[in-house]
C-alpha cells in the first residue's frame, strides 16, 4: 500500500518498521513531526525531553539496554546534543541508535544556517541523507542496520524541503525485536581515559571500514546519462538536478554523505567530461574531492547561503528560464506576527512603553522584535537571554540592572534557561527575569513540555512548579502577572526592576490558539468616539488597522483579549459581551 507522507512522517514510519522502541526528542522546526508521528504508534515509547542533550542521552540509555532508539532535533539542537554525540561515537551502541537532524537552509524558522554534515565528520559517525519521503523511510532502516553492524550511532540528515514535503511511501510491516538480556560491558561504555584510549583506534578503523562500504553501498548510486556533464549531489539537490537536466547529464547520487567514497567518485569523474558538485550550504563534498585530487566545479558556481531550486541551477548553467510576470507596484512584505490575542503582547507593550532593554530568547516571542513593538535587544540561542542578562548587568552595574530584563518562554526556560537562573542567584546579580508562561511550546506548533502537566500523548503528567523551582534556585522575589492586565504588568516590571535583588516575573496566560482557550466576543470600535489617535496601533495587533482615519477591528481575527480597550483613552473600544 502506498501513502502520501511528509518526509518526517515517513521517518516515523521507518522507526516503526525498524522495530524502534524508544524515541526522545525536543521539538524544533523542521524536525518536530518525526516525534509527533512516532508517538502515534503504540509500539514506540515516545517523549518530549527538556532539551536535545537529555533526549540523546535517553536514546543512549535505551541503546545500552539493547533496544533500538532514536532522537530527532533541528540543526541547532545538535549543538546541544553534541556533548553526548562525540563520546557516543567511542562507546558505540548496543541496540541500534540513530539521531535525526534537520537542517534549515534559507532559515525558514531558524537563527542560523549551519551545515550538520560537519558534525558527522567531527564526531566520526556515518551520516545518511534521503532525497524524498520514500527514501526517508528506507534510510531509517538502513541506518539502524549500519548502526548495529558497525557499532556506531548514525545520523540521518534531513532538510526543510525533505522534512516538510509529502511524497508516496510504500508501507511495510514492523520488524519485531526481542529485548536481549542486559550484559555489563564497562570497557565499552565507561569512557574514562583508560577505556577511551582503546576505543579511539576502534573509531578510526570503523571510519575506514565505512569508507570502504561507501564505495559499493546501494545508498550511493550512479545514474549514467549524457557524459558532457557529471553531477555529484545528495538530498534535495538531486531532485533539482533531475528536474532541470533529466537524463541529459550523469549523476552520482550520494545517500551516504559521510564517509564519502573515493574510488566511486574517481571512476565517475573518469566517465564524464566536466564534473560538478551541487550541494546546499557548505562545500563539504567539494572539499572531499579536493582532498582526493579530483577536479570539480562547486562553490565557484553555487552560493554557500540559502536554498537552491530549479531556477538556481538553470541560472548557474546559463540555461533559459521560463518567462514570468512581476508587478510594477511593490507588494508590501508580510512577516509573521504575534497572533491577535497573543498573551505576550501586553507584556511587550509595557516593556516598549518604558524603553526597557530586553534580552530575548527563542520562541514566538522573538516576534516581539518587529515594529511597532521593537521590544527586544538580542536573540542568540536557547536560554541565552537569562545568562546574557546576568553578563549584561555585571558589565553595566546597578544602573543597567534597573532598566534591563530578559524574556524567555516556559519551554525554553526548561530547555536551558534554568541553569542561567541558577547562575544569577549564585553569582548575585540583581537581574529581573521574565518567564513568558503560555503553557505550551508555541513556535514549533504546540508541543507539551515539563510545565504543562501533559505528556506527548496528552495524558496527565507531573508539572514543574515554576514558582517553587525559582524559589528553590534561590530567587526570593517571584511573582505572577496576567499579561492581559496592562496595569498589573507595569507595576510588576517597575517594582522588580527597582528591587536590589534578583527577581522572576512569571507572565502567565495560555496561548490563545490552545483548543481549551475559548475566544471571547470580538472588540468593536465606536467610530463616533474614536479620535484616530492611533494609541491602539502601538500594540501591533494584526486585528487592528486604521480605515478612513478611524480604528478598525477585523472580526475574523479578534479573539476579544481586550488589551486594546485598556489603551484607548476615549473608550472607543468595547468588547461585545455575550
Amino acid at each position: 500500500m502506498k501513502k502520501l507522507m511528509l518526509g518526517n512522517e515517513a521517518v516515523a514510519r521507518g522507526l516503526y518498521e525498524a522495530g524502534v522502541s524508544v524515541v526522545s526528542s525536543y521539538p524544533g522546526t523542521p524536525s518536530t513531526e518525526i516525534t509527533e508521528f512516532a508517538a502515534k504508534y503504540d509500539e514506540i515509547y515516545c517523549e518530549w525531553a527538556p532539551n536535545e542533550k537529555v533526549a540523546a542521552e535517553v536514546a543512549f540509555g535505551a541503546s545500552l539496554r539493547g533496544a533500538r532508539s532514536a532522537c530527532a532535533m533541528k540543526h541547532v539542537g545538535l549543538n546541544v546534543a553534541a556533548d553526548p554525540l562525540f563520546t557516543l561515537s567511542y562507546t558505540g551502541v548496543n541496540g541500534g541508535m540513530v539521531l535525526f537532524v534537520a537542517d534549515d537552509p534559507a532559515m525558514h524558522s531558524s537563527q542560523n544556517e549551519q551545515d550538520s554534515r560537519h558534525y558527522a565528520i567531527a564526531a566520526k559517525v556515518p551520516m545518511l541523507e534521503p532525497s524524498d519521503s520514500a527514501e526517508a523511510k528506507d534510510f531509517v532502516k538502513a541506518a539502524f542496520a549500519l548502526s548495529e553492524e558497525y557499532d556506531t550511532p548514525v545520523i540521518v540528515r534531513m532538510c526543510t524541503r525533505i522534512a516538510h514535503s509529502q511524497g508516496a511511501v510504500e508501507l511495510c510491516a514492523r520488524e519485531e525485536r526481542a529485548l536481549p538480556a542486559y550484559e555489563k560491558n564497562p570497557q565499552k561504555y565507561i569512557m574514562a581515559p583508560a577505556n577511551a584510549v582503546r576505543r579511539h583506534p576502534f573509531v578510526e578503523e570503523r571510519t575506514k571500514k565505512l569508507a570502504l562500504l561507501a564505495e559499493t553501498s546501494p545508498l550511493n548510486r550512479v545514474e549514467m546519462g549524457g557524459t558532457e556533464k557529471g553531477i555529484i549531489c545528495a538530498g534535495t539537490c538531486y531532485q533539482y538536478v533531475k528536474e532541470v537536466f533529466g537524463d541529459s547529464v550523469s549523476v552520482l547520487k550520494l545517500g551516504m554523505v559521510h564517509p564519502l567514497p573515493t574510488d566511486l567518485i574517481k571512476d565517475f569523474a573518469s566517465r564524464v567530461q566536466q564534473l560538478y558538485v551541487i550541494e546546499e550550504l557548505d562545500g563539504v563534498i567539494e572539499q572531499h574531492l579536493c582532498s582526493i585530487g579530483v577536479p570539480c566545479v562547486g562553490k565557484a558556481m553555487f552560493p554557500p547561503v540559502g536554498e537552491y531550486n530549479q531556477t538556481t541551477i538553470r541560472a548557474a548553467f546559463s540555461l533559459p528560464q521560463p518567462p514570468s510576470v512581476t508587478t510594477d507596484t511593490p507588494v508590501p512584505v508580510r512577516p509573521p506576527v504575534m497572533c491577535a490575542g497573543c498573551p505576550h503582547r501586553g507584556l511587550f507593550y509595557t516593556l516598549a512603553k518604558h524603553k526597557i532593554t530586553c534580552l530575548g530568547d527563542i520562541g514566538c516571542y522573538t516576534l516581539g522584535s518587529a515594529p511597532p513593538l521593537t521590544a527586544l535587544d538580542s536573540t542568540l540561542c536557547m536560554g541565552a537571554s537569562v545568562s546574557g542578562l546576568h553578563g549584561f548587568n555585571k558589565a553595566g552595574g546597578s544602573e543597567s540592572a534597573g532598566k534591563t530584563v530578559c524574556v524567555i518562554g516556559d519551554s525554553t526556560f526548561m530547555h536551558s534557561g534554568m541553569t542561567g537562573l541558577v547562575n544569577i542567584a549564585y553569582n548575585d546579580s540583581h537581574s529581573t527575569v521574565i518567564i513568558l508562561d503560555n503553557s505550551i511550546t508555541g513556535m514549533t506548533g504546540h508541543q507539551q513540555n515539563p510545565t504543562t502537566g501533559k505528556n506527548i500523548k496528552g495524558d496527565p503528567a507531573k508539572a514543574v512548579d515554576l514558582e517553587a523551582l525559582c524559589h528553590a534556585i534561590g530567587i526570593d522575589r517571584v511573582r505572577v502577572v496576567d499579561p492581559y492586565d496592562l496595569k498589573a504588568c507595569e507595576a510588576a516590571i517597575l517594582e522588580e526592576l527597582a528591587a536590589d535583588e534578583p527577581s522572576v516575573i512569571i507572565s502567565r496566560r495560555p496561548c490563545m490558539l490552545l483548543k481549551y482557550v475559548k475566544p471571547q466576543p470580538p472588540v468593536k470600535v465606536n467610530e463616533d468616539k474614536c479620535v484616530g489617535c492611533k494609541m491602539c496601533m502601538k500594540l501591533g495587533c494584526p486585528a487592528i488597522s486604521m480605515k478612513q482615519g478611524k480604528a478598525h477591528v477585523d472580526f475574523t481575527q479578534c479573539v476579544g483579549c481586550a488589551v486594546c480597550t485598556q489603551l484607548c483613552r476615549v473608550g472607543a473600544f468595547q468588547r461585545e459581551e455575550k
Partner: protein
Amino acid sequence: METKNVMIVGVGGQGSLLASKLLGALLTREGFDVKVSEVHGMSQRGGSVVTYVRYGDKVYSPVIAAGEADFIVSFEKIEAARYAQNLKEGGRIIVNSQMIDPMPVITGAAEYPADILEELKAKGVLVDEIDALSLAQQAGNAKSVNIVLMGRLAKYFDISFDKWVEAIKATVKPQFVDVNLKAFELGYTV
C-alpha cells in the same frame, strides 16, 4: 504526462494546509505521482505562506520555481501578486478578494496596493477573483474559505465533481464534512 503545478498561497492561519491535504489526497487517488511541499509550525503565523502541489507521471523537485505554476490559488489579494512571478505563461490565478493588512501596512510603513489585480490583468494574467469569505460564511463557517477556493479550482480540473467530494469526505474531520461540502459546491458553482 508533463508535471502540473499548483501553488496555494495566503496568510499563515488561513487553512492552506487542509487545502493542500485535500489536493494531495485527490491527486494520489487519481494515480499521479504527487509531491506537496508545505510550511509547518506556528512560526509563519500571520506571515506569508506558500504550499507547492506538483503531480504527473514522475515528480522530482518539491518546489515550484518562477514561471512554472499552472495555477496559483491565493487566499488573500496581495499574496496573489507576491507570487505572480511563479505563474507560467497562460497560467491562472484564483484569488479570494479578502484583504488582510500586513504589519507594515498596519504600522503605516507601507501602503496596501488594492488595485494590484488590475495591474496583473493588464499584463495578460488570467485572474479569477472570488469573494470566498462571503461564500464561506454562507456555507456556515468563515474558516471554510480554503474549500470554497478548492471548489473554484475544481472547475478548471479534468476530475469529476464526485471524485472531489469523495476526497473531501476522506480528508476533513467528520463533523466538518457537511459545511465543507457546501463550501466546495458554492466555490464550484457561483
